[in-house]
C-alpha cells in the first residue's frame, strides 16, 4: 500500500472513525409537509410547529432513537377555511387531541445512507405502527434526514362522517419531512 492510497483510505474512513451522534435539531431548517388530493386536485399543507428529539449515530443505527411531537394547531391545511375545519371533531378533534406524536422503536440501516425508521404514530388517540424510510445526508453545518411516507387518514379517524367519502378527499396523504440536526 502506497502513501496516497493509505491517505485516501484514512480520509474515507474518517466519518466512521469519528462518527457523529446527532442530538440537536434545528427547527428553522426542518419541515413537515403533506399533500393530498381533493376532487382529484393536489393540495399542499404542513405543520409549522413541532419538536423533535433524536439521538442518531448513522454508524450505530441500532442504538438510534427519535421522536417527534407535532402541534396540530400549527396546521396549514391548504386554506384558512380548511385550517379551521381541521380542528373540529370530524377531523383532528384538536381540543381533545392537540398533538400528534411519532416515537421510534428501532432503526434499521438499508445501506447507502438510507434507514428504515420503525415506530408508532399516534393521532387522534389512535396508534399505528409505521415504517418510514429516511435518507441521511451529511452537511457542513447541519445534516439532514429526509423522509416520506403515505398515511391513510381513515386509519386514524381523520375526516369522519361526511368527510369519510374518499372520492372528495382522498384517503392517502403523502407526508414529507426534513429534520436538520447537528451533533458531535
Amino acid at each position, binding site marked *: 500500500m502506497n502513501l496516497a492510497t493509505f491517505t485516501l483510505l484514512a480520509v474515507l474512513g474518517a466519518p466512521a472513525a469519528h462518527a457523529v451522534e446527532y442530538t440537536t435539531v434545528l427547527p428553522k431548517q426542518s419541515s413537515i409537509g403533506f399533500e393530498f388530493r381533493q*376532487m382529484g*386536485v393536489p393540495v*399542499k399543507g404542513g405543520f409549522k410547529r413541532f419538536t423533535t428529539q433524536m439521538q442518531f449515530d448513522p454508524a450505530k443505527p441500532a442504538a438510534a432513537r427519535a421522536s417527534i411531537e407535532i402541534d396540530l394547531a400549527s396546521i396549514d391545511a391548504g*386554506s384558512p377555511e380548511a385550517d*379551521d375545519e381541521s380542528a373540529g371533531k370530524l377531523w383532528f378533534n384538536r381540543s381533545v387531541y392537540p398533538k400528534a406524536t411519532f416515537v421510534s422503536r428501532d432503526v434499521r440501516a438499508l445501506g447507502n445512507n438510507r434507514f428504515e425508521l420503525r415506530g408508532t404514530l399516534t393521532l387522534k388517540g389512535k396508534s399505528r405502527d409505521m415504517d418510514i424510510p429516511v435518507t441521511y445526508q451529511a452537511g457542513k453545518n447541519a445534516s439532514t434526514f429526509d423522509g416520506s411516507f403515505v398515511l391513510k387518514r381513515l386509519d386514524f379517524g381523520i375526516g369522519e362522517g361526511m368527510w369519510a*367519502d374518499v372520492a372528495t378527499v382522498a384517503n392517502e396523504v403523502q407526508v414529507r419531512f426534513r429534520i436538520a440536526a447537528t451533533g458531535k
Partner: protein
Amino acid sequence: MSASNRYSTTAIVLHWLVAALIFSTFPLGLYMVDLPLSPDKLKLYSYHKWIGVSVFLLVAIRLGWRLTHTPPALPDDMAAWQRRASAVAHGLLYALMAVIPVSGWLMSSAKGFQTVWFGVLPLPDLVERNRELGELLATVHQVLNYVLLALVILHVGAALKHHFIERRPFLQRMGLGGKETT
C-alpha cells in the same frame, strides 16, 4: 335570394350553449361561496371551475367563428347610436366571457388550488399561492361578474325590446321562432 337575418347554426348553438353554462355557473358561484365547508361544497367548487373552463374554451371557438363569419345585418332603419351601442356591448360581452374564467383560474391558483378540468386535465398555476393576491382576484372575479350580469340584462332587454315593442323579428336572429329572411 336575400341575405338571411339569422346567425349561422354553429353560432346559434354556441351562443345558447354558452348562455346555458353561464346561467348555471353564475348562480352556482353565488350559492357555493357562503356554504360551510363540506364535501358538497368542494364538489360544487369543482363543477363551477369545470364549467368556467368550458365557457372559456367555447368562447374561444365562438370568437374564432365570429371573426371569420359575417353576422346578419341589423335592420337598415336602426339608429346609428344603437348600432354603435350594440357593437360595444357585444365586444364587452365577449371580453368578459373570456376574462372572467381567467380571473377565476388565477384566483384558484393564488388560493393554492390548481384547476383540473373535469378532474382530468390540469391547468398550470400561473401564479404562486398568495393569500392577498387570492383575495384581490376574488374581488376582481366578483366585480367582473356583476358587470357581466348588467350587460346580459341589457343584451336580453334590448333583444326583447326590438322584438316585442318595435315588432322586428329579432329573436329569430338567434334561432328562436321560424327562420325568416329580410
